[in-house]
């Protein structure tokens, strides 16, 4: 009893958060899990179907397409995005004072725009013939490319938008990491005759490892849940999504379509848990890698 009373203030302080968390996250997750084993249209009584929802999803051609797209997308966009952000951070860091602050703010600008806005702008930038990108290509004599409707270019068009949107965010975080690296480490390296590139390789990157880890893990988790940008770029609706030959179909899009387009909420929940499992495995893998590397 005395134990409980001693801890009471702690519980009271976390109570509001935990109560709302339980109501609006835990309960929905648990009930979603329950529905994932049922045929359910959100209105009539759920009907138990065992693993049928999971089997159906894994066996569907849209699932394999979405997963394949997701893997290709994540494998390219996460490392490339971080490389670009890192480059930008080094670039900004090479300036000082006013210019450094100015470029930092400017490069960050796209981050503050709502995602739907960035997607809409780029949808027009990419438009065949009169979109800005094609206009510029036209000045150099290239024929118009149908970026968002040619299966060879669609994924890369998405990745470009993605990097445009998120590079500033990662850059700012990496930049802060750069500023925390003690200057004498560079001086020591220079005295050893290290070139600028070697300094980056042997001083900057190892010192930045914890920040890089954060940026990468956060980037992976959000990339695996990619939804609004490809949805808007392809002009998707609940009944027609994914773009030409489903080249920009991703799991969350397929899940939303099954939920609101075909009214299969049981299947959509099952889809969500497959994706959740994937995210957990990937994140655990990242932490595992870090643990291995930190051991000598």
């Amino acid at each position: 009893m005395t134990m409980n009373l001693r801890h009471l203030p702690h519980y009271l302080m976390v109570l509001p958060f935990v109560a709302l968390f339980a109501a609006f996250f835990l309960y929905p997750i648990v009930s979603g899990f329950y529905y994932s084993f049922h045929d359910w249209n959100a209105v009539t009584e759920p009907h138990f179907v065992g693993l049928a929802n999971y089997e159906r999803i894994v066996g569907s051609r849209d699932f394999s397409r979405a997963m394949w797209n997701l893997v290709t997308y994540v494998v390219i966009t996460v490392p490339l995005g971080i490389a670009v952000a890192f480059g930008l951070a080094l670039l900004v860091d090479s300036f000082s004072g006013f210019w450094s602050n100015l470029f930092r703010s400017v490069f960050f600008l796209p981050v503050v725009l709502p995602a739907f806005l960035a997607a809409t702008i780029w949808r027009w930038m990419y438009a065949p013939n009169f979109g800005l990108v094609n206009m510029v290509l036209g000045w150099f004599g290239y024929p118009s490319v149908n970026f968002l409707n040619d299966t060879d270019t669609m994924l890369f068009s998405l990745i470009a938008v993605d990097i445009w949107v998120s590079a500033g965010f990662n850059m700012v975080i990496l930049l802060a990491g750069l500023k925390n690296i003690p200057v004498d480490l560079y001086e020591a390296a220079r005295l050893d005759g290290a070139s600028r590139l070697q300094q980056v390789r042997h001083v900057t990157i190892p010192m930045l490892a914890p920040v890089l880890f954060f940026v990468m893990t956060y980037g992976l988790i959000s990339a695996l849940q990619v939804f609004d940008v490809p949805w808007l770029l392809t002009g998707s609706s609940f009944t027609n999504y994914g773009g030409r030959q489903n080249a920009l179909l991703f799991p969350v899009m397929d899940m939303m379509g099954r939920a609101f387009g075909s009214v299969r909420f049981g299947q959509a929940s099952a889809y969500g848990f497959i994706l959740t499992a994937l995210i957990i495995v990937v994140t655990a893998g990242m932490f595992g890698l870090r643990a291995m590397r930190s051991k000598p």
Partner: protein
Amino acid sequence: MTLAIEATGSRRSRWSSITAWDLCRWAMAICVTIVVVFPIWWMVNVVFTEPGTPVSINPRLYPTSFAAGWDKVAMIMRETGYLHAYYMSMAYALLTIAGVLLLGSMAAFEFALFEFPGKRPLFGLIMLSLMVPTAVTIIPTYLLTAELGWINTMQGLVAPGLASAFGLFLLVEFMKGLPKEMIEAARLDGARHFQIYWHVVLPLTRNAMVTLAILTFMKTWGNFIWPLIVLSNAEKYTVSQVVGLFNAPFSHQTVDVVMTANLLAAIPPLLFFLIFQRKIVEGIAMSGSKG
């Protein structure tokens, strides 16, 4: 750093000390600036141009008709209740920020600085929820909100987003770095538990709170799916919903009108950024380096 040393070392004029590296980094910085800024600038030009002029004649590189743009703005304001949507989105964002900061900081205070039975499993559970895509929980959350009678209400819009696992994570990471001695000192001075939180820890956490407020603002302003299903009454639409009417694939509007609706949605976050840019950028920098 290196540059400064070289420059002072040499007594020649500034221009001759410009190296190839200087040229290169300026060129790169300017190129990136163009890539970043131009799409936004282009959107403004599409709005402020007479509609129907072919791109081959007017490539929308600069605004050509202020009146045309203003007409579109006036038309959208007249026909969609955009001003009220601004109000709804602002209220949604501000209430969410207030709630996330308060609940998050109270919980983070405990999770970061004290030990109590059940702390670890509870925190682990909350962190695990970061990995569940929102699409999984949206329907059960919606049904619960409906059960509470909160459809078409502000509390229905705001409450489900208050227990932010990401916010908790950010604040816990930050508070872990606070000096424990200060809390001990306050306790010896006779401060009660809540007073320590309010008078000692909260002021020290200001930077992290600002970051979280900014991130929350950006997230709620752009949030699309939740307002869409919880606010079905057109008189309660948020900005993202009103813009959605124009962005819909079957919307019967022309490009310039669609862009106008989008531009109007971008103005508050852009203003917000211009005013608070230092705080925003520094706050986000801090959140990452704590991780």
